């Protein structure tokens, strides 16, 4: 709560940084998120976990039985399922984060009018953005734990390093979520929102999830290596068998930079996103 007004009804200004957009109360938004989770149908929450599992069963087990072993990071031969599983986790982290920070925000902004209600309280846009990104990462964390568990059950985990898949997956999600909200601030119509889907599909299909990058001609390989998902896929694949190289740091650095730039970008766009 802010300071009480003086006798003439005049308030003292808050001079701390970001005071125009931030009330240091993101926890209220998070608290609401957990209330919603508690009262909603559990299947809605859980359903997001299944998509990568279905892919793993279909491609890893089905196609994998035909393909046999492939060359994993560092040249180690691994089963096809073990090859695609960490990549699927990266894809699922990306998809979840993008959905939560784009469509979800767009709907709550324009249809549910949820943010309008929040903005008329002493919350600022930065509180809302932080709270919503936190909730997106929390869901991502749940799915990552679940999926890593499935990998364990299917015998795809051979090293304790694989536990790092969980934080790495949250990092990938953070990278995408920090950008998603900023991008949504430019979107005015459904049709424009569909653009996001157009951009995400090639990122998914061309990021060496189901086959190695080497199948492409060199110029295409360069393009793919610029995509954030490719770095996520490679990083997760290395983690899953504990085979690290100097490139590991490049992947981590890529995400660190992406998160920093994304957060700065989103913070700059907050007024355009929320205060129209």
């Amino acid at each position: 709560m802010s300071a009480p007004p003086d006798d003439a009804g005049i308030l003292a200004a808050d001079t701390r940084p970001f005071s125009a957009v931030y009330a240091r109360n993101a926890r209220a938004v998070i608290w609401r998120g957990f209330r919603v989770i508690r009262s909603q149908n559990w299947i809605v929450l859980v359903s997001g976990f299944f998509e990568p599992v279905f892919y793993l069963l279909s491609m890893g087990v089905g196609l994998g039985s035909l393909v046999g072993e492939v060359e994993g990071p560092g040249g180690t031969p691994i089963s096809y399922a073990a090859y695609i599983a960490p990549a699927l986790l990266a894809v699922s982290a990306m998809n979840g984060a993008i959905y939560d920070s784009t469509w979800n925000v767009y709907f709550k902004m324009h249809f549910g009018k949820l943010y309008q209600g929040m903005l008329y309280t002493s919350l600022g846009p930065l509180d809302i953005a932080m709270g919503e990104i936190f909730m997106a990462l929390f869901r991502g964390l749940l799915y990552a734990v679940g999926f890593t568990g499935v990998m364990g059950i299917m015998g795809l985990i051979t090293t304790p390093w694989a536990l790092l898949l969980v934080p790495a997956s949250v990092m990938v999600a953070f990278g995408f979520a920090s950008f998603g909200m900023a991008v949504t601030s430019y979107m005015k119509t459904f049709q424009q929102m569909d653009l996001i889907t157009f951009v995400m599909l090639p990122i998914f299909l061309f990021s060496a999830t189901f086959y190695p990058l080497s199948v492409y001609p060199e110029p295409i390989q360069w393009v793919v290596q610029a995509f954030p998902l490719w770095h996520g896929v490679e990083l997760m694949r290395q983690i899953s068998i504990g085979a690290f190289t100097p490139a590991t740091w490049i992947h981590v650095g890529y995400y660190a930079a992406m998160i920093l730039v994304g957060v700065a970008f989103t913070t700059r766009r907050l007024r355009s996103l929320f205060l129209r």
Partner: protein
Amino acid sequence: MISAENLVKRYGGFAAVDGISFEVAAGESFGLLGPNGAGKSTTMRMIGGVTQRTSGRLTIMGLDPERQGPEVRAHLGVVPQQDNLDEELRVRDNLIVYGRYFGLPLAYLRQRADELLAFAQLEEKAAAKVDSLSGGMKRRLTIARSLVNEPRILLLDEPTTGLDPQARHILWDRLFRLKEQGVTLVVTTHYMDEAEQLCDRIIVVDKGRIMAEGSPAALIREHSSREVLEVRFGAERNAAVVRRLEDVGERIEALPDRLLVYTDDGERSLERIRASGLHPLTSLVRRASLEDVFLRLTGRSLVD
């Protein structure tokens, strides 16, 4: 409490608010009256600091809501034009979660939520889902929600639009009680009776500009007469008889379906019309209302 000077809000080339100035004193009940698209809601949004003004000066309790949004809004209660309740939460949780946005402690909120449910006559619906409520119930819940932080200023954007007569009267009663408790009310409406009921002072806004300002009674005095006599002679003849009625009242307005005679004594004017040998098909004498002022100032053509 609120001081606005030359407020302007442009969307592209279109000026939704085009240089509005006003002051609202503590405890006052202030009305923004105007047709759809006049700029009322935009003005409200600027006061709440949830839309950025193009130019002008605005302070709420001494602070600029754009620079000190969270602090200003901590003292505001807002009832937006369209209910924006949290559909994912139940009725009572709507109140509690909203209070959390003000950083209020749970112990207080539990108690406050029950008080407000009683205030809005929604005790039985505490555990209901929001989308199971009727329109009137949702509106009452929105108003209850706006009070969770015990605001000193309450912004109400068309609080009773779409409600049935019973619900409107309950609402007016509740708002009147808040006014008695010293809460400053800022109300937008296009219902004249509502403005007359609730507001001490009104500005009439049209196309983003202020057309008139004053108390409801003063506005009627200034822009209308005490009574209005409505007479019909049938669509064909109305225009023809206007000339013969010119001296019956202070002013005559010819509409396609009827003639309005602005006068201080409607019955006497009617007698004079009859004495002159004219026999209207129907006649009606009524007290002049803000509606007459409103139509006089903003015109009769459709605005959107």
